[in-house]
């Protein structure tokens, strides 16, 4: 015969009618078996049974109690059986006591355990179950939380949300990926960056957990050799990562692709881009004045992230045009400067409007410099309508823009137009393209009225600098 001690544990709360109903049953069991009762809301319930106060919910949390009453049989410290709610047969089986609650109904469902109430569960997990976190815990005492983060150099200049264990654990619920999985090696320090570190920075940026998969994909894309975050960070030019999101996830997490798309007001847009920049700052160690040598920078280096308006677009989504299957959740990173408006309120045919775009695109960084910089052309809905009504798709518009941007060499040469800057060499008789073959990225976004589009100039393109990278967003 085993000498392991068998004992029974019941978890109850006064507020639960089923718990109140089973009090006679608990007395019946306690008459013949060692029984410990944990009570969640009232330390005197059930009366005269000497319950253990579990109002801190530690026992309930650690034993994964989801419903009260729950009756558990323990042999030593090992759980061997459990009855959930009231069910006479199950309670008799777990307790080994026959004839329980003969005056009660055969069964009655229990109530939710207080330990799984949504507003309590995440705090309990942080308090009792945070062994999945590996990051160093920073103790704050007399310091103000916000000033403490500022003083440690973690801020981009705006206040940060304190990354408490509870908030970081909640953030990690946003992905199926393990907290210790390495997402990327982040420049300039070339530091390995885990899902957890991304989550911490996403909390600080103000992200909601459902944004985390987008932030993770952005970090992965930024740290590819093709995108070259190292160079983009170091450059004296004003570019930074511009993030464009495609796929159903845009709507699911409430991103903006409409009115004021590049401006203020949308939490997802603003915090996802900010989270990437905070990862580069805090994990990669890339800070302005140190490795970041931008002469002017641009306000988008705080955050520059938006969704494409796929539903209203005459074109296939950007990510689809870049090789991903339709309806893919994806993020495209582009090394871009600040946005600049193209006004054309008169053109009503696609050829005229394409010409307007071309003369403006030619000015990216300098009208006399070619084949160095890419560009995003973000077409507003009222301009897009003109292409839709004329039956122009993305390929046709792109091709026409490239044709219109073949520039006579005489206009580009150094000294031409009295301007020393320009392309070196004798280019008389030559024609040079402003952009490389894949150098114009067309997206559809913006909302409401306005015959406007926007150009976002790039940075050194191709092998010498950065290529746009499109990365699938994984849950």
């Amino acid at each position, binding site marked *: 015969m085993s000498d392991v001690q068998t004992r029974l544990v019941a978890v109850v709360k006064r507020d639960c009618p089923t718990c109140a109903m089973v009090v006679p049953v608990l007395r019946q069991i306690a008459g013949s078996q060692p029984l410990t009762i944990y009570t969640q809301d009232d330390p005197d319930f059930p009366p005269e049974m000497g319950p253990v106060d579990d109002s801190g919910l530690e026992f309930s949390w650690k034993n994964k109690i989801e419903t009260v009453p729950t009756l558990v049989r323990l042999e030593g410290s090992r759980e061997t059986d459990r009855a959930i709610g009231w069910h006479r047969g199950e309670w008799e089986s777990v307790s080994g006591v026959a004839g329980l609650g003969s005056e009660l109904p055969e069964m009655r469902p229990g109530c939710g355990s207080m330990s799984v109430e949504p507003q309590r569960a995440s705090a309990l997990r942080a308090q009792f179950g945070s062994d999945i976190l590996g990051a160093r*815990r920073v103790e704050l005492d007399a310091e103000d939380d916000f000033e403490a983060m500022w003083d440690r150099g973690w801020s981009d200049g705006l206040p940060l949300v304190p990354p*408490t264990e509870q908030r970081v654990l909640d953030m990690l619920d946003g992905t199926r990926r393990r907290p210790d999985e390495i997402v990327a090696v982040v420049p300039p320090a070339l530091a390995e960056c885990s899902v957890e570190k991304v989550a911490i920075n996403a909390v600080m940026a103000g992200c909601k957990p459902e944004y985390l998969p987008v932030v993770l994909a952005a970090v992965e894309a930024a740290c590819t050799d093709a995108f*070259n975050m190292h160079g983009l960070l170091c450059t004296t030019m004003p570019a930074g990562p511009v993030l464009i999101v495609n796929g159903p996830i845009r709507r699911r997490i409430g991103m903006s692709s409409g009115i004021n798309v590049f401006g203020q007001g949308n939490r997802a847009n603003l915090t996802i881009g900010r989270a990437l920049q905070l990862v580069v700052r805090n994990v990669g160690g890339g800070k302005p004045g140190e490795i970041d040598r931008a002469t002017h920078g641009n306000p988008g280096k705080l955050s520059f992230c938006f969704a494409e308006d796929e539903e209203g677009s005459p074109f296939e989504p950007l990510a689809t045009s870049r090789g991903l299957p339709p309806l893919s959740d994806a993020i495209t990173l582009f090394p871009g400067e600040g946005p600049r408006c193209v006004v054309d309120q008169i053109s009503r045919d696609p050829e005229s409007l394409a010409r307007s775009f071309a003369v403006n695109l030619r000015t990216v960084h300098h009208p006399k410099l070619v084949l160095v910089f890419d560009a995003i052309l973000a077409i507003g809905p009222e301009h897009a309508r003109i292409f839709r009504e004329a039956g122009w798709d993305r390929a046709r518009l792109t091709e026409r823009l490239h044709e219109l941007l073949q520039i006579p060499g005489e206009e580009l040469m150094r000294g031409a137009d009295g301007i020393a800057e320009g392309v070196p060499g004798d280019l008389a008789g030559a024609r040079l393209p402003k952009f490389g073959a894949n150098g114009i990225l067309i997206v559809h976004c913006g909302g409401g009225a306005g015959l406007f589009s926007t150009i976002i100039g790039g940075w050194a393109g191709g092998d010498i600098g950065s290529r746009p990278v499109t990365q699938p967003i994984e849950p």
Partner: protein
Amino acid sequence: MKRYILDPTNETTPSRRARLERLETLSGVTVGLLDISKPRGDLFLDRLQERLEEKGASVRRYRKPTFTKPAPVDLRQQVAVECGAVIEALAD
């Protein structure tokens, strides 16, 4: 009241290494000139090469594929193995 937040950094500390002793002479030393591929860096390095060779150094020239990325590991190793000193040219 004590509160805890989680460290958002990579939690590493840079290792400190002492600089190498300054060379007492360039005579007989192989000096690497690393062109980072910025425009006109070659003009600057050509002139440096002349001056170094006047002082008895022998010069080897190297070039990064692009100024926007760190030098490849193989190139760094090659410079370290072949040279007693290196000068990296930033230009524009």
